C-alpha cells in the first residue's frame, strides 16, 4: 500500500551562513499522528518546524503535506496553523478579531467566521474574554487564544513551538492534559517542539529526538526510553539521567557480561555485540537499587523526593552512580551501601555511542 503521509520531509538541509543547523533530515508523519521534536535548546527543532510552516526557506530537500509539495508555497497556503512560543497575539485586536483575522483574510463570510470563533471559544472556555485585548489576559488565557486562533483555521496540521514553556509549573501540567484532550477531539496531525522530555513522553505518539544537526532516533515514547538508539538519546531522555559506567565486555550464556572498574560483574541479556574497543554500561537509576548485597558504594549525597529517594554514590574505583531507594530510605551521606543492579534492564554502548539492548520478546 502506498498511503500518503500527512507530512513527508525529504532530505532537508539548512544552514545559517556558514553554520549548518539541520543536516539531511528525513521524516514522515501519518495523518492524525502527534509527533514531538525533542532535543536540547539550539538543536534546530524550531527551525525544522518553521520550515514546515513556511517561515524559513530550505537549502535543500523537499517537504510534502498530504502528498503535495508545499515547501515553495506561501505560509498561509500550506494548510498548517502554528502556535508560537510567545503566543504572538495581535496586541491591538480583540480576542475575537485575533481569532478571526486569518479567516477574514481569506474572505470567509462573516457568519461562518463568527460560528468558528464561537465554537473554538466554547471548546477552549475563553468565551468571557472574546471582547478583551490580549494585554488584559493571563499567560494561560493567552495560550488558549493562541490555540484558538489555530483551531478556527481547521488546518491539516497543527504546529506548536514550545507552547507550554512560558507557563508556571502547575498551569503547564494542566495545559498539558488539556492539550492531550484537545488532540483527541481535533483529529489532526500535530507537531510539538519541546525540550521537555515529560511533555514529549506524555503527549506524543512518536518522539523525534534531535541533536547535533541530525535526527538521533524516532520512536514511540517508551521505545525511546527503553531502547535508546545511542548514548545521546539515553542520556537526554530520563530524569535523573542514565548512569554510564566504563566496562569491559565478555560473552556470557544469556548475554554479555560487563566487568566494572572495581572488578565486579554485571550479567546482562544484551546480545549481538560487535567488536568495539571500549564499552559503557548504561543503567537507569531505577535499575540500581539500594540493597543488602551487591556493589559496594559510598554515599555522597541523598535527595528525598517523597515517593522515592535518589542516592548519589561512588564505587570503590571512583565511578559515580545514581541509585534509587524507597521513599522512607535510611541511607545517609557518608554511609557505605550495597547496590543491586538489574542486569536484565541494562544497556551497552559501543565506542561510537550506539546502543545495544535486551532483545524484545515476541
Amino acid at each position, binding site marked *: 500500500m502506498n498511503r500518503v503521509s500527512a507530512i513527508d520531509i525529504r532530505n532537508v538541509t539548512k544552514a545559517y551562513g556558514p553554520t549548518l543547523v539541520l543536516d539531511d533530515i528525513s521524516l514522515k508523519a501519518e495523518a492524525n499522528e502527534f509527533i514531538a521534536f525533542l532535543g536540547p535548546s539550539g538543536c534546530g527543532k524550531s527551525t525544522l518546524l518553521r520550515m514546515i*510552516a*513556511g*517561515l524559513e526557506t530550505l537549502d535543500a530537500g523537499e517537504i510534502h503535506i498530504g502528498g503535495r509539495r508545499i515547501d515553495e508555497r*506561501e*505560509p*498561509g*497556503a500550506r494548510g*498548517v*496553523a*502554528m502556535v*508560537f*512560543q*510567545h503566543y*504572538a*497575539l*495581535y*496586541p*491591538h485586536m480583540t480576542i475575537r478579531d485575533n481569532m478571526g*483575522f*486569518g479567516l477574514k*483574510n*481569506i474572505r470567509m463570510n462573516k457568519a461562518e467566521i463568527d460560528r468558528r470563533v464561537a465554537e473554538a471559544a466554547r471548546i477552549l472556555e475563553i468565551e468571557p474574554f472574546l471582547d478583551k485585548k490580549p494585554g488584559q489576559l493571563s499567560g494561560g488565557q493567552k495560550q488558549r487564544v493562541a490555540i484558538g*486562533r489555530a483551531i478556527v483555521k481547521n488546518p491539516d496540521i497543527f504546529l506548536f513551538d514550545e507552547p507550554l514553556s512560558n507557563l508556571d509549573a502547575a498551569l503547564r501540567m494542566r495545559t498539558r492534559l488539556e492539550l492531550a484532550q484537545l488532540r483527541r477531539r481535533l483529529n489532526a496531525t500535530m507537531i510539538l517542539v519541546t525540550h521537555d522530555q515529560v511533555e514529549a513522553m506524555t503527549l506524543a505518539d512518536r518522539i523525534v529526538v534531535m541533536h547535533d544537526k541530525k535526527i538521533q532516533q524516532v520512536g514511540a515514547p517508551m521505545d525511546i526510553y527503553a531502547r535508546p538508539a545511542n548514548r545521546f538519546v539515553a542520556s537526554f531522555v530520563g530524569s535523573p539521567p542514565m548512569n554510564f559506567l566504563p566496562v569491559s565486555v565478555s560473552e556470557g550464556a544469556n548475554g554479555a557480561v560487563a566487568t566494572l572498574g572495581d572488578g565486579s560483574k554485571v550479567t546482562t541479556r544484551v546480545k549481538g555485540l560487535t567488536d568495539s574497543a571500549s564499552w559503557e554500561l548504561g543503567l537507569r537509576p531505577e535499575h540500581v537499587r539500594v540493597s543488602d548485597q551487591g556493589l559496594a558504594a559510598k554515599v555522597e549525597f541523598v535527595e528525598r523526593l517523597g515517593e522515592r529517594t535518589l542516592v548519589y554514590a561512588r564505587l570503590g574505583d571512583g565511578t559515580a552512580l545514581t541509585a534509587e531507594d524507597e521513599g522512607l530510605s535510611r541511607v545517609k551521606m557518608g554511609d557505605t551501601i550495597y547496590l543491586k543492579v538489574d542486569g536484565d534492564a541494562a544497556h551497552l554502548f559501543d565506542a561510537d555511542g550506539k546502543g545495544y539492548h535486551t532483545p524484545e520478546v515476541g
Partner: protein
Amino acid sequence: MSKPFGHMGWRHSLWWLALIALGLIMVAPLIWTLMLSLKSNSELLRSTTNAFHLPYTLENYAAILKSSGVFRWLFNSVLVAGLTTIGVLTLSSLAGYGFARLEFPFRDVLFVVVLFGLAIPEQAVIITRHQMFAGLGLHNSYPGLILPGLAAPFGVFLMTQYFKAIPKELDEAAMLDNASRLKVFWKVLLPLTLPAQATLGIFTFLAAWNDYWWPLISATRPEMFTLTVGIASSQINFAQTSGLGYLMTQAVFASVPILIVYVFFQKYIVRAVAGQAVR
C-alpha cells in the same frame, strides 16, 4: 507614596512654591500678549504698562478680520505644517519598516547615511537648497515650503527602532494568517506604532509650525507667508511703538491652532517630551 508629613512637608511646599513661581513666569508673557491685544493702539502708544487695567477693546480683532493677511498665513501654516507632518509620518513609517524588516543590498550602509542626516545642520545646506529650489522654480509655492521638511532622518531612525522592537513573531503569525506583506504592515504593525507616530507627528508639526528661517527665505510674496513670517513682517516700525495691540492680536490668532493641538494631544505630548513613547 504614603510618607508621613514630617520634615518632608515643608520641603514639598517649597517645591510647590518654586514650581508655581516658574509657571507664572512662563505664562506671564502669554497673558501679557492677550492683554495687549485687547488694548487700543493709540493708548498703547502712550504707555504699555496700562495693559492690566480698563478700558479694553476688541478693535484689534475687528481690524484683523477686515485687513490683515493673518488668515491667509494661518491657512498656509496649517497646510504646510499639516502636509509636512503627514508626509514625514508616511515616509518615516515606510522607511522604518523597510530598514527594520526587509533585506536589501546596502541596507545598513544606507541607514548610516540616513543617520548622518541627523548631524547636518540646516545652516550648512540652506544656500545650496535655495539655489536648487530657485532652479526648480519652487520658491513661493507650497511644494517649496513643504518638501525640505520631508527629509526627516530622525523620523526614519525613530520608526526603524520602533519597528525593530515589535517581535517578528507577529509578522509571522500574520503571514500564517494569510496576510499579504502590505496587510501585515497596515493591519498589524502600523497600529502598534501609534505611540511613536504621535510623538513624531507632534514634534514634526510643532517644528514645521514654528519654522521661520526657510519660509522667510523661500516665501517672498505675502500671500505665501506662513504665520511666523507674516507676523514678523507686520512689525513695521522700530520697537513697535505703534500698532502693538494689532500685532499682539495676530500673535493670539497664531497661537490658537497650536493651543488646540496641545489640548487634544496633551497626553501624547507629555509622554513624547518625557521620552516614554519610545521604549
